[in-house]
């Protein structure tokens, strides 16, 4: 019996090792590539990503090991008919029960994360009006709605408007909640900042909003994620997260420049389309 069971154990071990190695390889690649996220919200989403990934890899490793083991162990060796097993009983309960437990667990964890990231900003948080158009972006800042350090009596709006050939830069301060209001007047676009691990659509006829608190400074690439026509691929922009004083300085410069050019518009107006 020992002689019979030894190669079987070896085969099982080989199958499990192969499946485990594949799973490890996938984990390694994912961790090398998956951005950790630069906002509080993104970090929560990243944790959920890893929970889903680990659960998925365990399922993959178990099923793949069973599959590899079965096709090695049960190769046809003769004409004798194998036992005709139709299933049924406890094992079929397990077939339904195990997946139900897995998906209810993952669903619960997802919902907890969803509630955590769905926080609304205070009224006095910085608000950035984002308008997507074919094929670039406008980022507008109302001078009396700049979050901390806002002068409530300031008037006017500064706007950054890009073109497909000249990607606009979205300035935002680090370590404070920033609310984005997303609008479109032509077709659907999607505001996608990779390192936010988040995207939200800009839909004609409605305003979508979300709030994030960035924790890292630097330049982060972003682009439209919803097919919007010929130059969809060129609808890129950069998110530049800076310290608060740097942000204030940029606002002051821009306001002065746009006032000089006569492009500073009254609070109610919009620019570009």
């Amino acid at each position: 019996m020992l002689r019979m069971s030894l190669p079987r154990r070896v085969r099982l071990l080989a199958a499990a090792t192969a499946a485990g190695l594949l799973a490890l390889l996938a984990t390694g690649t994912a961790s090398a590539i998956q951005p950790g996220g630069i906002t509080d919200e993104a970090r929560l989403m990243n944790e959920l990503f890893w929970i889903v990934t680990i659960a998925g890899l365990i399922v993959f490793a178990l099923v793949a090991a069973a599959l590899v083991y079965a096709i090695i162990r049960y190769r046809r060796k003769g004409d004798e008919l194998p036992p005709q097993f139709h299933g049924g009983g406890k094992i079929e309960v397990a077939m339904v029960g195990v997946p139900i437990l897995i998906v209810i667990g993952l669903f619960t964890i997802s919902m907890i994360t969803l509630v955590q990231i769905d926080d609304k900003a205070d009224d006095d948080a910085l608000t950035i009006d984002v308008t997507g158009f074919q094929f670039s972006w406008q980022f507008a800042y109302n001078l009396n709605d700049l979050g901390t350090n806002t002068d409530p009596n300031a008037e006017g709006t500064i706007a950054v408007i890009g073109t497909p050939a000249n990607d606009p830069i979205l300035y935002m301060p680090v370590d404070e909640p920033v609310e984005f209001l997303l609008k479109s007047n032509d077709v659907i676009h999607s505001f996608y900042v990779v390192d936010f691990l988040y995207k939200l659509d800009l839909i004609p006829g409605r305003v979508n909003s979300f709030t994030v608190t960035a924790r890292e400074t630097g330049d982060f690439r972003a682009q439209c994620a919803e097919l919007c026509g010929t130059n969809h691929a060129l609808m890129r922009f950069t998110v530049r997260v800076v310290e608060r004083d740097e942000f204030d300085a940029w606002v002051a410069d821009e306001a002065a420049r746009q006032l000089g050019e006569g492009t500073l518009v009254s609070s109610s107006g919009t620019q570009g389309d």
Partner: protein
Amino acid sequence: MATVAVPQLSGYHRPAVLDWITTVDHKKLGILYLYFTLFFFAVGGILALLVRTQLAVADNSFVGNDAYNQIFTMHASAMLFLFIIPVWAGFGNYLVPLQIGAADMAFPRINALSFWMLPPAGILMFAGFIVDGGAADGGWTAYSPLAQQTGVGMDMWIIAVIVLGMSSTIGAANFLVTMFRMRAPGMTMFRMPIFCWTMLVTALLQLLATPVLAAALVMLFIDRNYGGQFFDPNGGGNVVLWQNVFWFYSHPAVYIMILPGMGIVSEILPVFSRKPLFGYKAFVFATIGIGGLGFSVWAHHMFTTGSVLLPFFGFMTFMIGVPTGVKIFNWLGTLWGGSISFPTPMLFAIGFVSMFLIGGINGTYSAAVPVDFALHDTYFVVAHIHYVLFGGSVFAVFGGLYYWFPKIWGRKLNERLGKLHFALMFVGFNVAFFPMHMLGLDGMPRRIAVYADSAGWEALNMLSTGGAFLIAVSMIPFLIAVVMAFMRPKDQPDDPWEANTLEWATTSPPPHYNFDSLPPVRSERPLFDARHGDEAH
């Protein structure tokens, strides 16, 4: 006159072409479906190679941005509407009457009508390339308002999809009546072959979902041409309404595209494991469960619109993983304890199980709503759908072709070429589509014609393109095997695989009315019973 002229039973010989055009025989119509859909598989494949060539290097200008949008739109449209959905109608047409022991479909003339609606629709859709403004270029999802902006090619696309939908709706009614009314004596519903069950649920989905798509397309057509404002917020319409009605069809359609493939795999695995399907009833109920739940998950394509009840659709999307998981157990349990041999159809079936497993796991990422916020509309999702629809459906199509080729054409495809085909396709598939997971995690959106060098996506894209061409190369041994088979005489016996179901109880290929006599049907494996009697129960 004492003599009477006896009429000679020489028959009326129609020319072969006329015979094929006027036939109402389910087998000939099935073969026509297969030829038609495999043609568009090739067309869609060539379009895919154009897409992959454009994306192979950063800042490429192989095709322009406008042309690119047309090419990927028509790639998806060809693959979904002209290949994968009708290819199941092809297998179903050929096999369902044979598997249930019937002489033909319930409504043979309607059957012919279903098929003959396809070629004009395919021509109309592709004629978009020669009209002003080019072919449809709004993606196969045709999101409004973008779909309002494009040229007349979009109108042609809309009409073509409506016609294809009519074809599949009446085809579905035909399949349902056939399976409900024309089963052989002894064949209860729970003795029906598993492929028939998957066709039955698929037909139900088509019957219930396709008219919704037709309504949405008519609304879009009116918006575009007659100033309707269904989807225009400036006229009181709603942009997101299009997505709701479109996905109300198109998510069930994903199951329309995969369920018969699961059926084919569930025919092949038991035959080459020499065991019954493990958990036949569980499989049937899981199929019905997928069909039912399939109608309650559509908005998971819309999580980033900001107008979706996220917890409900997140929950339903997770729940549809349960019947899918049950099927993985069915297949593992079938192999377990079997006596497994590995001819080409079995390789494709096992390939299906392993790739579909990945396609199921990477789908859960999109069910976890916050993770979907990151991955939606990136290449991660492109990887997911191809693991399901190529690693799943296309592997099942080829498994089915190798498996039933002896029945349909009376000849076997060469085993060595078949194995080479499988190996090349399996490797090519994974090289083409696995890197897309990484590209998606790294933030590459789908449907972009170009990406900047600075994005750092070139190496993985180049790898993926290489895989795509390897898939194309894998078709060469398949085509050689087909040509070689047709150069040989028909030499296949009734049942070359020692199979289980009734189509193997008649000659290969079967005569015009299918059966001279039927074996008794006392289980879901009448041929196994005939071979082994009661010894193995």
